[in-house]
């Protein structure tokens, strides 16, 4: 658990570093915080997930741009939808058995789907609010598409790092 918390904080700081020091293109926004939210323990309900998402967003905003509220606004819906998306993609058995998410047991395809959905929710809100009505719809759509591709790829790696390989014995 402590290791998970440490990993969570380190990866959050990694997101801070990416946003602070790696400005690749105006068309790309790399966001892997949804993957961190996704990897929270399954037993934690949406309220706790949302509170953690809000706190994470607040901390990241504080350390990155100073625009407090921007990341929280986009991340809280991810916290809300997390369990619903997991139930939709992985099925209710996961909750019935009280298992945690695992790359080895559930397979990377389902993780990919989960990550895409949650990252998309996050990016839609973040790009829309960040643009503040200044950019055209075409620009925002293009930015969303590219960001989703890049962020999903990185998020998969982040999720892999986050989840403990306990499922190996179920393989």
């Amino acid at each position, binding site marked *: 658990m402590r290791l998970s918390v440490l990993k969570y904080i380190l990866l959050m700081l990694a997101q801070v570093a990416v946003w602070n020091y790696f400005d690749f293109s105006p068309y790309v926004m790399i966001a892997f915080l949804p993957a961190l939210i996704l990897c929270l323990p399954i037993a934690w309900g949406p309220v706790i997930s949302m509170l953690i998402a809000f706190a994470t967003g607040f901390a990241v905003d504080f350390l990155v741009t100073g625009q407090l509220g921007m990341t929280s*606004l986009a991340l*809280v819906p991810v916290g*809300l939808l997390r369990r619903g998306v997991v139930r939709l993609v992985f099925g209710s058995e996961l909750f019935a058995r009280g298992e945690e998410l695992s790359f080895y047991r559930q397979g990377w395809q389902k993780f990919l789907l989960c990550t895409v959905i949650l990252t998309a929710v996050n990016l839609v809100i973040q790009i829309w609010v960040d643009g503040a009505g200044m950019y055209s719809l075409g620009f925002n759509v293009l930015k969303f598409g590219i960001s989703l591709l890049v962020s999903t790829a990185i998020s998969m790696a982040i999720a892999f790092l986050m989840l403990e390989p306990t499922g190996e014995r179920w393989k």
Partner: protein
Amino acid sequence: MPRGQKTSSFLVCAATFILLEVAALALLHASSTLQDIWLTRATHRTMAFLWGSGETVRTQFQLERLNRELQSENARLQERLRAYERGEADREELARMAEREAASYRYTPATVVKMSRNRTRNYIILNKGSEDGIRPQSGIISDRGVVGIVESVDKHFAYGLTLMNPEMSIGARLDSSDVVAPLSWDGRSTGRALVRNLPPHYEVAPGDTVRTSGYSSIFPPGVPIGITGGSRLVDGSTRQVEVMLFQDFAALRYVTVVENLERTKILSLIENTEDAR
């Protein structure tokens, strides 16, 4: 999970979500100028939409009353339009009458060559005669009012009698009461005349304007003569009113001879009618 617990869990979840999102928006609103402007604009747009929708709904419910008001307003406006059209028709008729009246008189300017003021029968001689279109029994007026009547003409001059002649009488009308009575010189002063034979029940206030009546077929109606002074009963049967003339005969230089072009027709009509009797 029991149904009640599920509902309360859902409510808590929804409340937390709303609370956190509102908190995030409030933070964003306070910390970023660009987003602050955007959010303010979005808020205004939303409020305008809500108010507009509310107003539309309210208007829908008030349509019946608005219709009634519009109908009554329409009726009022139509009535005013009809009144305006009637007024316009009246004005056109009056304009036609004035035009016809103006067309029945010919005005010729003339200069006073000679004039008497101190006799019992005072005369005036003008520098226009028959060659200038002046005919006997034409009126002589000035910008101050009635002067006299042309008595006879030669080629280049006209001879007339001024109002300062006891035999001369012209139809006068009092502005306030519209009553018509003969006016003639009082025989004594140069600036005074008398309106005689007024019915005794007419009370004439001093300061009332006296004008030509238009009944005489010599002067057009409405030419100013003077203003009323005192009045008195004569023999208990008629009222006599003193009139201060507008015209100052001592300062008269330019006049206008006015000829009624329909005078011959009028006289002929009167003559024929009287002959037929």
